[in-house]
């Protein structure tokens, strides 16, 4: 039999019908995650056509994008400030009730960012197809699933038929070798990979991250890597399941148990790419050369080592425009640039290990005078786990704000925004113009770097504080 990749195996297991010259494949979806922003129009289509949800048991909804992070708005009597956000949240409640879909609603103890709670609950599993109306669905690929973002029309397709029409993408192997240096983490690795590939380098491809460096990452770190696949243009990123994956899933509330666990394990162990499997493209990355990374421009590919200088590209109007937006100059060192806001959160970097990492630098220190730091855990479970080990005290005593979970300042839909012209070091995934607020200037970095920048109030190499 021809050696197959992890992607090939998952794809073939889910073909209801294979693609032909005239029609795409009909691909079955194992797990469909919903949130309040991209689902209302899909439910509207079901209503217009008199359709039911085919598999409510394969569907889970939560609310994260437009939800408040202030405790009094989540648990107290203070209403959601933005009327349209409140309406959207209420609409999701009505839609889930009408179509019999389980909803982890605003006050639910397991609510959180959709890409944090799927793995955390043990719902996202190796070998599955997972979709959600959100481009960072690629996160779940860390478990060895084929997981990708879809639009609202496709959300409707999956609700009604549990299937999608898909052309088979090409495969891209990113082979990473060598040990990551002290102070360098998964976020630095993926930013460095995006810098190398470019923001469209993965377009049309599914990435498989492989090699000794990837195998040495824990699950939270693998999720950070897969999460940002879309920032290189790839709809999905995958990592072969191994003992790390199985140990992570064992005992989680929605993971299989007993005999079902044993059967699942046997099936999962057959998933990794076969020896000699061919990829359409291969890229090799030397992890030993990766430094703490930070972005300086308006897309995640505009990234440099934190001790580096902002490059110049003569005759590139888009590049010049990006620097003008950022208020930065070619040739300058990025270090010591002023920072106004630090955001520790998002589906990229708001899991427990991310909070722990930032806390190592903040413990016993205070954030710089005049700087605002928002810490927004990825889920309510992450929040409680962090509180159980006293991380909330570390952040609060350092002068940061400790909030309820949600997407928050990653995209500012809920009103958590960065002001015009302000510099925000953010552990999120996108530094696009206006992403965190009109005129906001975002610099993407790791939780460790974000904490170092918060302490000094300027761009700081975290290794100087370690």
């Amino acid at each position: 039999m021809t050696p197959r990749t992890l992607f090939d195996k998952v794809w073939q297991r889910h073909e209801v019908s294979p693609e032909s010259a005239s029609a795409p494949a009909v691909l079955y979806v194992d797990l469909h995650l919903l949130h309040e922003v991209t689902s209302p129009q899909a439910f509207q289509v079901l209503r217009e056509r008199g359709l039911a949800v085919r598999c409510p048991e394969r569907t889970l909804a939560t609310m994260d994008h437009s939800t408040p992070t202030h405790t009094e708005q989540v648990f107290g009597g203070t209403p959601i400030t933005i009327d349209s956000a409140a309406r959207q949240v209420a609409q999701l409640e009505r839609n889930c009730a009408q179509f019999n879909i389980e909803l982890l609603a605003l006050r639910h103890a397991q609510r959180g960012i959709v890409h944090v709670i799927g793995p955390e609950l043990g719902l996202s599993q190796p070998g599955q197809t997972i979709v959600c109306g959100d481009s960072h669905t690629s996160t779940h690929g860390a478990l060895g699933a084929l997981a990708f973002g879809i639009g609202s029309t496709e959300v409707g397709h999956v609700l009604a038929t549990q299937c999608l029409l898909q052309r088979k993408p090409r495969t891209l192997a990113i082979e990473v070798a060598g040990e990551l240096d002290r102070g360098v983490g998964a976020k630095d690795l993926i930013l460095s990979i995006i810098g190398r590939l470019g923001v469209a380098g993965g377009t049309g491809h599914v990435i498989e991250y492989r090699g000794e460096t990837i195998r040495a990452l824990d699950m939270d770190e693998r999720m950070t890597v897969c999460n940002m696949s879309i920032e290189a243009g790839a709809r999905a990123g995958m990592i072969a399941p191994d003992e790390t994956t199985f140990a992570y899933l064992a005992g989680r509330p929605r993971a299989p148990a007993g005999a079902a666990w044993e059967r699942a394990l046997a099936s999962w162990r057959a998933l990794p790419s076969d020896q000699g499997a061919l990829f359409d493209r291969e890229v090799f990355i030397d992890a030993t050369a990766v430094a703490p990374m930070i972005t300086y421009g308006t897309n995640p590919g505009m990234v440099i080592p934190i001790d580096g200088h902002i490059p110049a590209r003569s005759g590139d109007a888009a590049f010049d425009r990006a620097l003008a937006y950022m208020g930065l100059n070619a040739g300058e060192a990025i270090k010591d640039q002023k920072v106004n806001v630090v955001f520790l959160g998002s589906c990229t970097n708001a899991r427990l290990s991310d909070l722990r990492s930032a806390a190592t630098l903040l413990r016993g220190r205070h954030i710089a005078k005049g700087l605002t730091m928002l810490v927004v855990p990825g889920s309510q479970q992450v929040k409680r786990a962090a509180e159980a080990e006293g991380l909330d005290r570390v952040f609060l005593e350092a002068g940061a704000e400790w909030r309820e979970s949600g997407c928050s300042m990653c995209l500012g839909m809920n009103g958590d925004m960065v002001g015009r012209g302000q510099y925000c070091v953010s552990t999120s995934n996108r530094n696009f113009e206006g992403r965190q607020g009109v005129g906001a200037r975002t610099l993407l970095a790791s939780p460790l770097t974000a904490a170092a920048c918060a302490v000094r109030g300027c761009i700081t190499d975290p290794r100087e504080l370690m």
Partner: protein
Amino acid sequence: MQPFTSLTSRTVVLPSTNIDTDQIIPARFLTTTTRHGLGAHLFEDRRYDEHHALRADFPLNQPQASGRILVAGRNFGCGSSREHAPWALIDYGFRAVISSEIADIFSNNSLKNGLLPVVVDETTNDWLIAHPGVELTLDVASATLSLPDGAIVHFPLEPFARHCLLEGLDELGFLLARRAQIDAYERHRA
């Protein structure tokens, strides 16, 4: 959906590369629960300044900018999966987007709403960017673009998507008609 067979229109040019979906429709407008009315906020933060006055230098704001074909720099539509991006472009009046590279999810979302994504080579795209307002004809059946000098440029168009555009079909009907196959797949897996 209305059938989409061909389109003849002038172009509007946005030369920037990597125009992401946050620029096309900023996140703060995504709290809507319908598909309509987003055109008013298309490129909001590039069209308006901080006092909500139109920026004269933004291509869409120039008096001569009228046309249903948007030409943009490489990697248009990157970023989020929000279908609000093609909804906003369509609501504003666009029916096609031309670029030398178009992001995957945006391209999929566009086709499902009758917005034609047209990927051309860099040379053609550079020429189109340098000549805003030219009249082009896009033909769906042959997947071709006719330039003013009569030259014909082919662009990739997935055959099933082309069929749906030409017939005005949506994919949901096709999937619903596969019900027996989906049932069989579920039985086989169980």
